[in-house]
């Protein structure tokens, strides 16, 4: 008996798992490059967990004040929280600490990029349609959790920029009508910056609760994909709504997927080692009374800063009661609308089109002009608000007055998406027409050839 057979036999004797294992090994993966985007997100998540575990050995989750006496001269003698000091130490004195920290930060960025691209792929190909609505819902939930997770991660550092980000988050929380102040009082234990309780809470959420939650949802997401099988493009005659065609997990897919995992890890470690990211020792420690000019959050929160900046200056007031404080509009309502759209679009589409069918075959963006134009419109909306959030950089770089830019965006963030959606719709229809013409020509040529061959015989 070969060694392989012995091992498999031993496993089967103990678990009765051979049928399941055989099914798993021969599970089919339909092949298309865009199906790898979700995999990249999964692998970035693995790198996040691995590097994150390493960082927990050195991070201190305390906002009690200490005086810095480490090797980094510019901070010498400054008062800072233990949290910030521990991250400065990770970056300066812990061997390989900076590499791991930067890789962790890069991995968070790539994780979110991959999720968003994966979401776009799923959206524009209609992969979320029945029977995969639940998979879509879990995916959007994971995106929400991942954004919060990333926000907590860079808030924990307690450098100047992260502190400014945290107080903005606090203010958005305060702006929730009727209950905001109570909720924040509860979470921070007293008015900002609270009584040192937030850091242990945020820390356990960042390193345990959220990763476990994301991990469980991830498992459900993948299990559901496996149970329902992956969608496919119709590339071959054999493929249909009922028959899936693909490469089996073993031996075809396994080395490729494992290769992708290692490639993602490799790129992340190269970035972590060679490309500086978030040099927190330069920002300095946070104090409530210190601010810095030209502050920009990590890109995945840039759309929210744009939303906060664009809203004209007013609180909605009834008598002496402040019904809606200003940060609610840009910081809470805007993301609520975007995520509300993501959660409810599949149902809305079913309503709009009356298509309640079962779909295992994907559409190309051009095949469904309605969906594509709605998607392009939403993306343009979020992107324009994001760009509006960097008006201050544009002002510094090109000298265009900040106020003029804001006034322009206040109008254009609503006009721009409409234009983009109309253009997208037109492009889809034109592409469809071109294909139809091409097909007709092929038919005509084939017929002509057939007629010619008949004549010659």
């Amino acid at each position: 008996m070969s060694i392989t057979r012995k091992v498999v036999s031993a496993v089967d004797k103990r678990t009765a798992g051979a049928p399941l294992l055989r099914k798993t090994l021969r599970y089919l993966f339909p092949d298309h490059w865009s199906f790898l985007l979700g995999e990249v997100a999964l692998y970035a998540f693995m790198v996040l967990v691995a590097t994150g575990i390493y960082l927990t050995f050195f991070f201190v989750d305390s906002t009690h004040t200490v005086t810095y006496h480490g090797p980094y001269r510019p901070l010498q003698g400054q008062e800072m929280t233990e949290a910030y000091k521990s991250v400065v130490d990770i970056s300066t004195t812990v061997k390989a600490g900076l590499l791991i920290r930067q890789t962790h930060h890069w991995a968070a960025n790539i994780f979110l990029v991959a999720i968003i691209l994966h979401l776009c792929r799923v959206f524009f190909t209609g992969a979320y349609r029945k029977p995969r609505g639940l998979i879509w819902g879990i995916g959007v939930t994971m995106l929400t959790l991942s954004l919060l997770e990333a926000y907590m991660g860079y808030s924990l550092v307690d450098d100047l920029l992260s502190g400014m980000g945290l107080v903005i988050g606090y203010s958005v929380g305060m702006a929730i009508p009727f209950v905001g102040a109570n909720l924040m009082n509860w979470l921070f234990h007293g008015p900002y910056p609270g009584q040192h309780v937030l850091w242990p809470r945020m820390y356990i959420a960042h390193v345990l609760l959220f990763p476990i939650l994301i991990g469980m949802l991830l498992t459900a997401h993948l299990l559901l994909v496996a149970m329902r099988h992956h969608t496919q493009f119709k590339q071959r005659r054999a493929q249909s709504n009922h028959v899936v065609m693909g490469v089996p997990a073993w031996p075809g897919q396994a080395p490729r997927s494992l290769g992708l995992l290692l490639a993602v890890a490799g790129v992340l470690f190269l970035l972590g080692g060679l490309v500086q990211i978030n040099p927190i020792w330069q920002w300095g420690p946070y104090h409530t009374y210190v601010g810095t000019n030209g502050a920009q959050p990590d890109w995945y929160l840039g759309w929210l800063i744009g939303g906060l900046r664009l809203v004209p200056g007013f609180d909605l007031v009834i008598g002496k009661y402040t019904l809606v404080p200003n940060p609610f509009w840009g910081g809470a309502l805007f993301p609520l609308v975007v995520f509300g759209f993501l959660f409810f679009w599949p149902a809305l589409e079913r309503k709009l089109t009356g298509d309640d069918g079962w779909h295992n075959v994907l559409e190309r963006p051009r095949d469904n002009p309605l969906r594509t134009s709605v998607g392009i419109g939403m993306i343009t909306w979020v992107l324009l608000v994001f760009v509006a959030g960097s008006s201050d950089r544009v002002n510094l770089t090109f000298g265009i007055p900040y106020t003029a830019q804001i006034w322009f965006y206040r109008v254009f963030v609503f006009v721009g998406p409409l234009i983009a959606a109309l253009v997208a719709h037109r492009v889809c229809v034109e592409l469809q027409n071109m294909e139809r013409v091409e097909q007709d020509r092929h038919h005509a040529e084939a017929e002509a050839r057939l007629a010619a061959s008949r004549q010659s015989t």
Partner: protein
Amino acid sequence: MAKAKDALLSGLVLLASRGKRRRKVDEDPLRVVPDMDVSRGAETRAIALFFLSALAFLAFVVVYAVDRIPHQTQFLGLAIGLGFILFAAALIVTGLRLVVTEELVEEYPPQEHPGEVDLIASSVEEAGSRLTRKRLFKLGLLAAGGGLAAAAIVPAASFGPLLRVKEYFGTPWTRGRRLVDEDGKPYTADDIEEKAFYTAFAENADKEEMGASLVVVRLPPSTLDLPPELQGYDADGIVAYSKICTHAGCAIAMYRVPTFAPDEPRPALVCPCHYSTFDPASGGTVTFGPAGRPLPMLPLTIDSRGFLRAKGNFNGAVGPSWWGVRNRKPEPQS
């Protein structure tokens, strides 16, 4: 460690190249995975990549161990990154060129399993056939479950005070309290010059508290344009405002002086987070940006020795807006 890795790698290589030594492809009816022709070039490449990857990982260990190597972060990243990339390349060559590639077809699982669904539903429903007061039974079950959930959730109230919002109106300012700088040195009126920007704190207060910090600027008294209810809040043209933006709680860190275009010829206090812009000459009114209410102003006085002192508390609540922010004026903390 490296030895174990090498053994593992060669194992993988052997596994990948298993059954391909025969040159001739003949159909073996007992095979699960179909046989294919050998590809010596790809095999050589994969094996070379595995060994190079092992070398790169080894280099990581060396760079980690030898302190004399400069630019540790960069070399560590380079070594481990290349290790991963080479390993990945070897596997991708294996996956695309070496292992047997086959495209198979299979049925998608059916839309639903009506028979199974019926069975499950029946087994659940029939389990309750001995119950006579089903509704009451369900109600009891629901009550117990709800009680359990409530008992589990309620202790989370210990996180912090949910209902008490009094603290939001507290500041350390009392009549006569001096204004000090970051090192605790009291400001005199002469310290404050025009066209400059000062951060001040309540003497002996916790500087991190939102109500403690101020921006202080001196304006030519002739340019002051305070509304009637703020008359007398300035001291010889020196005005003081809460340093915390009323929009999203960032520190007001910019002073546009001598002018800021929309308020020509007045200067402006600006928050760097979302560019809420306040007019220090007219009582901190919002002239641009998203802030929904003016900066709270602190009334000042100059004592006989020239020190700046508070004449009372702010005219409005400090910090970002919330539902009760306009309900009452701030008061000294007990």
